[in-house]
């Protein structure tokens, strides 16, 4: 069996990212779309940590911490928006989120 190289991690991360993109494009439930965004952020984090290991520098891990911070902030605000929207329209289907369309 061939040893695990950075390319393996890159392929895994690309696959995870693509699954997230497909989730955003295909699903109509906005909560699932938010979860797909979290999947994409995780794919980025895997890349950062892998290169931090590869080059023996902890900077990549520091950036991964910042990505997690931004993901937490995004989740809090995004879910707040979902709640506010649900209170007004009684739906989480993005096809019906056309308030700002003109």
């Amino acid at each position, binding site marked *: 069996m061939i040893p*695990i190289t950075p390319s393996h991690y890159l392929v895994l991360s690309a696959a995870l990212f693509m699954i997230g993109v497909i989730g955003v494009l295909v699903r109509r439930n906005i909560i699932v779309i938010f*979860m797909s965004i979290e999947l994409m952020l995780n794919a980025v984090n895997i890349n950062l940590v892998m290169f931090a290991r590869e080059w023996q520098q902890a900077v990549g891990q520091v950036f991964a911490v910042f990505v997690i911070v931004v993901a937490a902030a995004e989740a809090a605000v995004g*879910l707040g928006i979902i709640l506010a929207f649900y209170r007004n329209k009684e739906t989480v289907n993005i096809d019906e989120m056309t308030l700002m369309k003109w």
Partner: protein
Amino acid sequence: MADATVFYTLAAAIVGFAVLVISARNTVHSVIFLVLNFLCVAALYVVLHAEFLAVIQVLVYAGGIVVLYLFVVMLVNLKRPPETHQDPRRRSRLGLVMAGLLLAQLAAIGGYSVTTAGSASAARATEAAGGNVEQIGWLLYTDYLIPFEVASMLLLVAMIGAIILAKREL
């Protein structure tokens, strides 16, 4: 060889759970698969010797963000017919099986840590080399102090924003 096995197992689990997250019909199931996905990613971080990040992943992602998602899924109560199972004690039986699995897991971990004394010395060797937490902490409080403070400000803003958005009326 062992590395490859661990990597392929974790990679398969990560991709499989990710596919389940976006394909599950029930949103609660999606959230559960998301937790499993995050835990597998945390295990991958341990393989990559990023122990601090693995702990943060479990605490913040699997512990905090996912609970937030679960709350929203529960609040955004999608109209589903109540579950009608023929077997009323199905739930308690399932719970018993899960409890047994957890007990077996804990026993395995306990037995492993008693029999292998090498893990403690390995941990001490990592500590002598600086330690993962120490490295990250050093970088965060020296080279990346400004981004660190900006991140804390971002979290504060997000917290206030979330409270204002979720409040019924101000």
